[in-house]
């Protein structure tokens, strides 16, 4: 089943992630053009070699988004996809691009997720109060509009907090273990000049003393909104040989969706990344123990804990001990989020998951500078969208 592993990531681009962005504001179409140019140059490809694109939402169009982008870039494509998987989007983009390349319908595919602020509209816009409900749908007829939003169960924080609380009731909760995860990731992130928290490590006490947002989640366990964004170029085997860097093959993938609101999850603490990861490992012919690194989607600490368990890096209920007993930094046996994760990078709109894929590619290509791992052939990557409602996994390998 699945991919043969011949399609590869051959180049990438990543904006520096910043909490207080003072640079030029750009529309998403403009960021698409800029990121595509940068990623092509990185790979050593000519823009006219692009014949496929995978996008998500853009700020300038609600419909016909791929065509809008193809037109803006001036690049006719044989393959265009719009992926709507929240934080699982970047991973979902990569396997769709790889599948299209393996099918032979295109040779070079660009995937981009912009996340810089757009210019201020000179025409004042009416305030839409529903925008505060974020990813929860307030449209009439939406189950969330009727059964969640009126009770205040909306957006992300409270859903993840309730998952964490349930986990604690079933298996026990150790705030110090969760704080150590943040400390180890921020230690990695301190070495990453693209991270919003570059050179800003934290201590266990910093985490435990940070503001309680939704019990048990504290401020430093939650991603910080920032400006950023990134892009990837994937190519077939022949093109990849001509590129500048070691090809990063897409060896396996999985994707699994269950619910929109965790209230209705069959089991709140056994998450969709389990079946997604099992498929990815089986397709690639590797197990969790074979990985040189794990780039795990980290919107919250609880997301990483549940992914470690459900993807099989440790047993169910053993995650807290795993976090306590293992060095999770670039010096450990299995480094987690070598770029510092989104807890260090910050989360730039819908592009957060792109940081995990870009970092896996950067490490496998051997381009991670101060945080380069000595062994860098195999990476697990996960994506998480919604409130643990849609998750995806990749196995990436050096050629």
């Amino acid at each position, binding site marked *: 089943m699945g991919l043969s592993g011949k399609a590869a990531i051959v180049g990438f681009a990543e904006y520096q992630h910043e909490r207080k962005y003072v640079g030029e504001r750009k529309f998403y179409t403009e960021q698409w053009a800029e990121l595509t140019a940068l990623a092509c140059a990185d790979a050593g490809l000519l823009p006219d070699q692009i014949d496929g694109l995978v996008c998500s939402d853009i700020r300038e169009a609600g419909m016909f988004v791929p065509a809008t982008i193809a037109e803006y870039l001036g690049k006719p494509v044989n393959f265009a996809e719009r992926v709507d998987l929240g934080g699982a989007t970047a991973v979902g983009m990569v396997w769709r691009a790889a599948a299209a390349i393996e099918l032979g319908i295109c040779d070079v595919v660009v995937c981009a997720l912009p996340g810089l602020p757009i210019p201020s509209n000179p025409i004042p816009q009416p305030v839409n109060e529903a925008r505060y409900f974020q990813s929860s749908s307030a449209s009439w007829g939406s189950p969330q509009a009727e059964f969640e939003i009126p009770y205040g*169960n909306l957006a992300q924080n409270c859903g993840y907090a309730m998952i964490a609380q349930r986990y604690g009731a079933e298996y026990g909760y150790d705030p110090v273990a969760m704080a150590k995860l943040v400390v180890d990731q921020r230690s990695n992130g301190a070495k990453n000049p693209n991270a919003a928290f570059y050179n800003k490590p934290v201590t266990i006490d910093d985490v435990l003393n940070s503001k309680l947002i939704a019990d048990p989640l504290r401020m430093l366990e939650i991603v910080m909104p920032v400006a950023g964004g990134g892009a990837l170029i994937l190519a077939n085997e022949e093109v990849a040989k001509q590129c500048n860097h070691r090809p990063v093959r897409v060896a396996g993938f999985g994707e699994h969706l269950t619910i929109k609101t965790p209230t209705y999850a069959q089991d709140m603490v056994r998450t969709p990344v389990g079946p997604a990861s099992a498929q990815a490992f089986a397709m690639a012919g590797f197990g969790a123990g074979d990985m040189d690194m794990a780039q795990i989607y980290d919107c919250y600490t609880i997301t990483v804990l549940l992914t470690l368990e459900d993807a099989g890096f440790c047993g169910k209920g053993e995650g807290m001990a795993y976090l306590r007993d293992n060095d999770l930094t670039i010096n450990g046996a299995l480094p987690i989020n070598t770029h510092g994760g989104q807890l260090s990078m910050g989360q730039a709109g819908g592009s957060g998951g792109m940081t995990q894929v870009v970092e896996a590619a950067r490490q496998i290509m051997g381009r991670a500078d101060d945080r380069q791992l000595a062994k860098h052939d195999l990476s697990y990557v996960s994506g998480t969208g919604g409130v643990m409602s849609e998750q995806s996994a990749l196995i990436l390998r050096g050629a």
Partner: protein
Amino acid sequence: MSSSFTKPVPTPTPVTQPFWDGLNAGQVRLQQCNPCGRWIHYPRNRCPSCLSADIDWHDVDGIGEVYTFTVTEQPTAPHFSDEVPQKLAVVELPQGVRLTTTLVNVAVSDIRVGMAVKPYFDALDADTTLLRYEPV
């Protein structure tokens, strides 16, 4: 601190109307699928197990237990700034369904996963009653 934002309230649909009518009358109503026996919440036009449309409404006592909860120190949206700390909970009923609610008449420090809770019918106005929960 009061909120200047309009509180979001449910707007029933033809399919969900009996649920809200029940709450307005002080009654919890759940759907059950006749062919497969599955209880259903939130209300749907088809059973989420067998996709049958052969579904009936039944009155239930609504007593259940807290499956999980969180207490917010930051409002989940500015519309709820007057409710902080919000005592958000998921309640599981013996019929096997779960519903989202907020807890009332309970101290934050007394909330536990597994605690028994019963319906508290919070009539916002003549048309809208929310199903909140309080300790049994």
